[in-house]
């Protein structure tokens, strides 16, 4: 399945990009699985995740076409 992945704030700097398309040849994929596809490091403790712009957690089951965003804790405006 194809997933669009986005990074914000310090995580964008760390990942060296603001977004990427990830294609995974699997039927089932959680957010945690996705993270293993994009990074060799463990998922940082404080990192938040949103799927299709809604907060969720790393056990969330993804479906094709989802937009997944990883970002540090928000600071407010």
């Amino acid at each position, binding site marked *: 399945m194809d997933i669009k992945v986005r990074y914000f*704030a310090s995580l964008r700097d760390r990942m060296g990009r603001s977004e990427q398309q990830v294609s995974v040849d699997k039927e089932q994929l959680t957010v945690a699985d996705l993270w293993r596809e994009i990074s060799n490091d463990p998922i940082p403790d*404080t990192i938040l995740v*949103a799927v299709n712009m809604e*907060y969720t957690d790393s056990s969330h089951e993804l479906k094709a076409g989802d937009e997944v965003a990883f*970002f540090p*804790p*928000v*600071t*407010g*405006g």
Partner: protein
Amino acid sequence: MKVFVTKDALDPYKEIMAFEREALPAGKHGGVVSFVGTMRDFNDGQNVKAMNLDYYPGMTERHIERVCQEAMDNWDVMDCLVVHRVGEMVPTDPIVLVAVWSAHRKDSFDACRYIINYLKESAPFWKCELTREGQKHWVEKNSEDPGVAKRVERKTA
């Protein structure tokens, strides 16, 4: 209800007047409570010259709209307007505007405070300080809470 995020300089009172003209029926609201937040001088770190505010286009607006809708459901509010500046800004720049119209002022005050507390504490924005030497420093916040758990506190804060 109108919520928007902009990289342009913010003229808050122009926005309030324009929205009131366009969206509010004449002679029905008894008052409008507004909060205009301004970027302060940096207290810690004389070396910081500006701030860059990052956001998640689409998600940020969606979550602000949801909180505005909560405010309109919880209080007797006629309409509300939120404008938030993003990108690079310097001290004295207006950053955020919340305006709430209602027949009774108590509802306007409570709803406006509810919305600005959300914006300041839990909305999807990320602050980055820019030093005179051109370095970036992302502000860290020790919060695992993306905003949901603080709802009740915000109501009374």
